[in-house]
């Protein structure tokens, strides 16, 4: 047997005791064999090869090497990509639009509705959610009148009023009209929500505003269940709650506009409400603090709605113009019409649920 070769541990294979010193001790040099010098020279040579020359500012900005003509070409190509072949007038239009927004030269109606914000910002950003995420199927859109006042009455569900937003999108998509939602006063108390709501066409759900909008020929939307509907537990899904005092019917009767019942299936499953923290809700001044299978456990990720399949059905318009002027003050008639609307929505909810093969498709 020859001499055993000693390989020190923990030094990366280099001779030495792994003490961290660059130069191994004399003892270890002798242990490791006879060619330490040559090896060292080799190493220093390779490390000097790795030394780069100082970076110049020219190199740091790689664009400097590209001639301006190429820049222009690239920009032009990008413009064609974004705006199509007619990119110059398109881009000019976009610039003019931005300039106008910047200078405040646009008009809002008396409710604070800003059509440009609604169309180009709100509805445009809802499109992928409506089409790709919820795959909304709309039925009976022909029941929406092409012009004149009308009141869309819908069931309300889903913990957050996503159904309202989706209805706005669906109405605009199928008729080109803007649905003017009538929202709870909480909407107008919350920062950001309030200003965005008014700009996208909402106003407060009160008799004065409802009548004003309907008389002005707008297509208004109400969710008479209110917080009772949107904040109901998942176990009570698709069970319509009480329809308030029927104020919406009185407003429609007084202005003689048709009521269009709308049933939305799918919104119940986006945030299944399995619990509530009433004490925290009271503290925050909110109607409820929801607990869903994902929220608050996943934090902000829990705010991503579940991708349920949505069906929306606009029912036959219920005419109110044949009642005489005083009918709106007749509580019995108002309750009867309210019940009729409620029953219509409930029935079509059941039939839509039967048609849906599963929650997800």
């Amino acid at each position, binding site marked *: 047997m020859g001499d055993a070769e000693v390989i020190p541990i923990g030094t990366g294979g280099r001779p030495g005791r792994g003490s961290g010193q660059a130069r191994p001790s004399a003892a270890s040099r002798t242990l490791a064999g006879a060619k330490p010098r040559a090896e060292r020279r080799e190493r220093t040579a390779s490390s000097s090869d790795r030394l780069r020359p100082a970076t110049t500012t020219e190199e740091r900005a790689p664009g400097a090497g590209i001639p301006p003509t190429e820049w222009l070409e690239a920009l032009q190509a990008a413009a064609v990509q974004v705006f199509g072949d007619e990119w110059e007038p398109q881009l000019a239009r976009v610039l003019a639009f931005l300039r106008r927004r910047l200078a405040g030269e646009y008009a809002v109606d008396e409710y*604070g509705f800003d059509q440009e914000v609604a169309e180009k910002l709100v509805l445009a950003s809802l499109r992928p959610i409506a089409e790709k995420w919820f795959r909304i199927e709309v039925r009976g859109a022909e029941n929406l009148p092409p012009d004149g006042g009308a009141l869309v009455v819908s069931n309300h569900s889903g913990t957050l009023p996503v159904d309202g937003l989706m209805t706005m999108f669906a109405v605009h998509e199928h008729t080109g009209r803007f649905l003017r939602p009538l929202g709870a006063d909480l909407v107008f108390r919350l920062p950001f929500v309030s200003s965005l709501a008014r700009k996208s066409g909402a106003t407060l759900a009160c008799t004065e505003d409802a009548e004003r909008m309907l008389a002005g020929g707008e297509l208004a939307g109400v969710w008479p269940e209110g917080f009772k509907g949107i904040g109901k537990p998942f176990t009570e899904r698709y069970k319509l709650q009480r329809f308030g005092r029927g104020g919406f019917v009185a407003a429609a009767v007084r202005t003689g506009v048709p009521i269009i019942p709308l049933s939305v299936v799918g919104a119940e499953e986006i945030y299944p409400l399995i619990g509530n923290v009433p004490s925290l809700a009271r503290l925050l001044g909110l109607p409820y603090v929801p607990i869903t299978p994902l929220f608050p456990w996943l934090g902000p990720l829990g705010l991503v709605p579940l991708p349920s399949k949505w069906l929306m059905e606009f029912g036959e318009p219920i005419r109110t113009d044949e009642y005489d002027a005083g009918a709106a003050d007749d509580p019995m008639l108002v309750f009867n019409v309210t019940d009729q609307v409620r029953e219509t929505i409930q029935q079509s909810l059941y039939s839509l649920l039967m048609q849906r093969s599963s929650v997800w498709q």
Partner: protein
Amino acid sequence: MGAESRSRVVLVTGVSRDLGRRFARRLAAEPGVGRVIGVDAVPPRGDIGDVSFVRADIRNPVIAKVIAKEDVDTVVHMSVIATPGSAGGRGTMKELNVIGTMQLLAACQKAPGIRHLVVKSTSTVYGASSRDPAMFTEEMQPRRQPSSGYAKDVAEIEGYIRGFARRRPDVRVTTLRLANVLGPHVTSPITSYFRLPVIPTVLGFDPRLQFVHESDLMRVLTHCVHTDVAGTFNVAGDGVMLLSQAVRRLRKPTVPLVRPAVGGVAGALKSARMADFSPEQLGFLTFGRGIDTTRMRAELGFEPTYTTQAAFADFAAVVGQPRSPAEALFDGLSSLMAEPASTGAGDG
């Protein structure tokens, strides 16, 4: 007017303020108006023309003597003030507003010659809250009764005026609830707010605003002196504007502040005498307000010349900044765009 053979004698209160003084002057030049008597506790600063000024504090009964002696038949009450300003503190302001109106109305009630009373009130009386309807009509009440400040003063004043109208049914009483008056000469809480170099706003809220041009204020008051229509009327220019839009048109920077912080900033600005924020103005700048002017047109028969936007544009021409760098950039880009487009057409 033809039935009324003798020319009118009009008493105008609050002429020490710019709007009051200019209205009195304008009225004195009107045909059918014989004399205009301006009343205030402090003499007016500028030229009052043909107006005869009587230095009298409407807070004490002297005002009754003035009305009796001059044989006044029309009273235009313009001294309902929104800010204490030079008058002193809030206490003085309240006294001027409420006690002053009470004394004036008491004097009017005793004067048999009084035929017309025109009161310049304000749309502040409707308050501003998240539960407001989009547009207030004259029959609507504020959603929350104001507990203090200008809004409460105005609510009380209007109460006294309704009482007066009941007791003297022979007097035609016209109350005008005006939106914010704007104009190059106007000094008011809202104009001093827009004159700030950097405009504080409430984060996350974009109130709706309505304006009346100062010349329309003059016109509507003159119209009310001549007309025979009694009642309460909202007066505002057509259309509404958002605060964000107004600020952009002024080309001024904004500082959005969370709502609790706005109170502190408002206090600091007040002590620096830069702007006078009151609680009701804070509410207004959070929730905004709209007033319906159907009745102004249909019943009062008045048509403002300036829309809300035009009134603001006239004001912005004085207060606003020149073209901002960002706008200049956009203008430059669009002119660049326009040129190649035309040459391109030539090449093709």
